[in-house]
C-alpha cells in the first residue's frame, strides 16, 4: 500500500517536472501561456484534442495568452451581446 502511494507521488512529481520543462519551452517560444493554462491544454491534448484545433482557438478567439480578466460589474441582463470571438 505504502509502495503504491510512493509510486503515485513519484509519478506526480515526474509529471510536474515535465510540465515545468514544457512551460520553460513555451516561454522560449514566446507562447505567452501561464503554467495553469498549459496544464489544461496538455490535459486536453491527452484527451484527444488536436494541437492545431487548440492553437486555433487561441489564435482566433484571443482565448489563450490573454490572461487579463476585465473587471466588470455588469450583471447578466446588462451584458453585451457582442462576444469576443
Amino acid at each position, binding site marked *: 500500500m505504502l509502495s503504491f502511494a510512493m509510486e503515485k507521488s513519484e509519478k506526480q512529481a515526474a509529471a510536474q517536472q515535465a510540465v515545468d520543462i514544457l512551460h520553460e*519551452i513555451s516561454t522560449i*517560444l514566446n507562447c505567452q501561456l501561464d503554467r495553469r493554462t498549459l496544464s489544461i491544454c496538455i490535459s*486536453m491534448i491527452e484527451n484527444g*484534442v488536436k494541437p492545431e484545433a487548440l492553437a486555433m482557438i487561441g489564435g482566433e478567439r484571443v482565448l489563450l495568452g490573454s490572461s487579463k480578466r476585465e473587471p466588470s460589474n455588469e450583471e447578466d441582463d446588462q451584458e453585451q451581446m457582442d462576444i469576443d470571438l
Partner: protein
Amino acid sequence: MSYLSELAALTDELIDAVAAVPKTQKRKLQSLRESTVQSLLNQNFLRTNQFEVQNRLAGLVERFRIINREPLGDALEQRLDALKPHVNDFTPEVLHFLLELSDKPAQKSRLSD
C-alpha cells in the same frame, strides 16, 4: 466520465483561466463554452508528425544561433534534452501545440523571462 463531459469540463477550466469574459456574464460564457467545444470537436487535422516537430525545433535552435542569439538556442536545446526522460505518446503533440502558438520567438523572446 464520458469523453464529451471531460472535454466540456476542461474547456470550462480553460475559459476560466484565460478568457477575458467576467464571470458575471453567464450567457456570454455559456455561448463561448459551446462554440469552443464545437470547434474542438470539428477537427479535421492530420496526426502530428513527430519528425516534423523535431525538425522545426532543431531549425529554431539553428535560427537562434544564426541571428546571434546563442543563449536562447542553448536554453531551448537544454530544455529539449531535459524533456527526453519524460517523453510519452503525447509529447510530440504538446510540442506541436507550442510551435503553433509561438509568436516570433527569434525576435521577441527574452532569456530573462
